[in-house]
């Protein structure tokens, strides 16, 4: 009987538990987290803040999860892992306890970046990642009228969304010339910007916050340009980094995140990593990437769980998959979104608020940006991207036919089933 230790208590960790249990009923499983409570999703904090769900609903599993899967939970600040003894195969907790393991999964996720500017840690200047963060923002938002969000990435945008939903007067500050630099292309970002401006969000692009001061509870943000913005509350959403400050001395290879292979294994025998804290090779670009997204966390976790449980398994997918719903408009992206470097972006839909841009590398589809109705095709476009097929017809056919048709056509061709399948360029499609 083996003893599996899992550090972390969110998507990567719980998925690992569930899939480990599919192949191993009897092994011992210990789950360690510095946060006390049942598993919750950091991705849900903005939904909670927008009023779409209760605080409790962020906790997508309750305590019965541990019992159901026969997991020993070690939860709370005292249980935070402070060191890994890779040679001795044990982890040391904050309270001094040593927990031995046969194999270890590090799924500690990420943490917010707190900028080192003056006033970055003033009361009323908050970050958003954990459930606790969300509770604090919710409390502050009870009285705040003017909210400034610093950062135009996914969390920033979702926070703005939540605050708009709560009727706040919102200012958003972003260093770059557009919002959503990672999960959207430039045109998609512009569409979202326009929507926010339409509902009165004061969006300041290409602006850096120089310092934040407190004046009788009022926060005054001074921007690099010299402009000043007043707010009752400031949310710093400038990004997250892997939560891996306890690795010293363990010999685990880190390159931005913990480097894992397609079995979720690190360079150290018996140690796995999954989710936001891991760096893995993007199956589409071939580059080592840190994906702070649920689809990566669950796939890394699933594969880690199966391997730990004794079933050698490689992951099936590893690519950027984003979705978010600013102001009720479904948006998403798949794969590689950057043009240049021999990549070509083709906008195939751009009307009535709908937008679809496809990114090609030669004749190979590598990415898609989707707003509105085209988002329904996100999953199929991901499948097409993952097939990694070079097909000279794909580019033109995706402009007329659906992703589903091309998916079927290419699969059928691959299987030699219907080599003559052609997207109808005639009447019905």
């Amino acid at each position, binding site marked *: 009987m083996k003893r599996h230790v899992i550090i972390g208590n969110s998507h990567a960790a719980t998925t690992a538990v569930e899939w480990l249990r599919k192949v191993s009923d009897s092994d011992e499983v210990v789950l360690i987290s510095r946060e006390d409570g049942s598993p919750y999703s950091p991705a849900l904090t903005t939904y909670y803040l927008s009023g779409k769900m209760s605080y409790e609903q962020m906790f997508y599993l309750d305590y019965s999860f541990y019992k159901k899967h026969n997991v020993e939970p070690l939860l709370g600040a005292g249980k935070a892992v402070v060191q890994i003894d890779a040679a001795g195969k044990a982890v040391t907790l904050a309270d001094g306890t040593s927990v031995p393991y046969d194999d270890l999964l590090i799924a500690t996720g990420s943490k917010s970046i707190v900028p080192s500017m003056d006033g970055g840690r003033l009361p009323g200047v908050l970050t958003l990642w954990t459930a606790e963060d969300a509770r604090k923002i919710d409390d502050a938002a009870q009285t705040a009228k003017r909210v400034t969000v610093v950062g135009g990435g996914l969390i920033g945008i979702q926070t703005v969304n939540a605050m708009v939903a709560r009727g706040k007067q919102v200012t958003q500050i972003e260093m770059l010339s557009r919002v959503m630099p990672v999960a959207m292309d430039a045109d998609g970002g512009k569409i979202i910007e326009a929507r926010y401006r339409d509902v009165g969000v004061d969006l300041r692009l290409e602006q850096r916050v120089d310092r934040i001061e407190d004046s009788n509870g009022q926060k005054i943000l001074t921007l690099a340009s010299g402009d000043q913005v007043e707010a009752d509350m400031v949310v710093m959403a400038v990004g997250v980094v892997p939560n891996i400050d306890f690795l010293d001395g363990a010999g685990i290879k880190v390159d931005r995140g913990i480097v894992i292979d397609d079995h979720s294994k690190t360079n150290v025998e018996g140690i796995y990593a999954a989710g936001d804290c891991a760096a893995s090779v993007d199956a589409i670009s071939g580059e080592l990437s840190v994906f702070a997204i649920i*689809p990566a966390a669950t796939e890394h976790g699933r594969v880690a769980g199966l391997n730990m449980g004794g079933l050698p398994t490689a992951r099936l997918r590893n690519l950027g998959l984003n*979705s978010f719903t600013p102001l009720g408009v479904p948006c998403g992206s798949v794969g590689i979104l950057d043009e240049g470097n021999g990549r070509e972006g083709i906008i195939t839909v751009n009307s009535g608020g709908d937008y679809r841009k496809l990114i090609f590398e030669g004749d190979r589809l590598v990415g898609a940006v989707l707003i509105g109705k085209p988002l*329904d095709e996100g999953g199929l476009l991901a499948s097409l991207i993952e097939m990694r097929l070079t097909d000279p017809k794909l580019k033109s056919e995706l402009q007329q036919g659906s992703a589903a048709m091309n998916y079927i056509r290419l699969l059928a061709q691959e299987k030699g089933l219907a080599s003559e399948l052609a997207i109808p360029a005639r009447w019905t499609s």
Partner: protein
Amino acid sequence: MTKGLLINASRCIACRACEVACSLSHEGEIDPSKSLIGMQLFNEAYFYYPMVCAQCEIPYCALNCPTRALEKNPETGQVDFIADKCINCNLCTVTCPFGAVTVRDGLAHKCDLCDGDPWCVKFCEVGAISYGELPEPADHLRALPYLRFTDEVVPLTPVTGDAPTA
């Protein structure tokens, strides 16, 4: 043993009764765009494929649903949708390999198998859609999403085996 919709595309003649039956039974009106089974028509090749939820062994929609509104039912093996839990985050839509989960009116929509008596099957006289036990893969944990083109089950790998490793 998971029961689900079995597609035999070689029998499909594109009458679209499945789409109509689906939208009428679920929405009370006729609108193919609201059907949970979606015809893909290759007219020149006389090849038609009704796309629908495959009740995947690795259900990416459920795997990635942060609220567990989509969940693989351990008893039936089917992927259930609990509307109350859906927060319209769209992760299911971008992660379903078949585009079988769509988002409309702030809620995810996917085939619910009509409580075990699917309307689309009742109206598919040619036998392109049937309700029955999905084929058991040799190793169900490795089983991938699949599409059926003929009577034969064709397992598919969404990622070819050459994914680079770190």
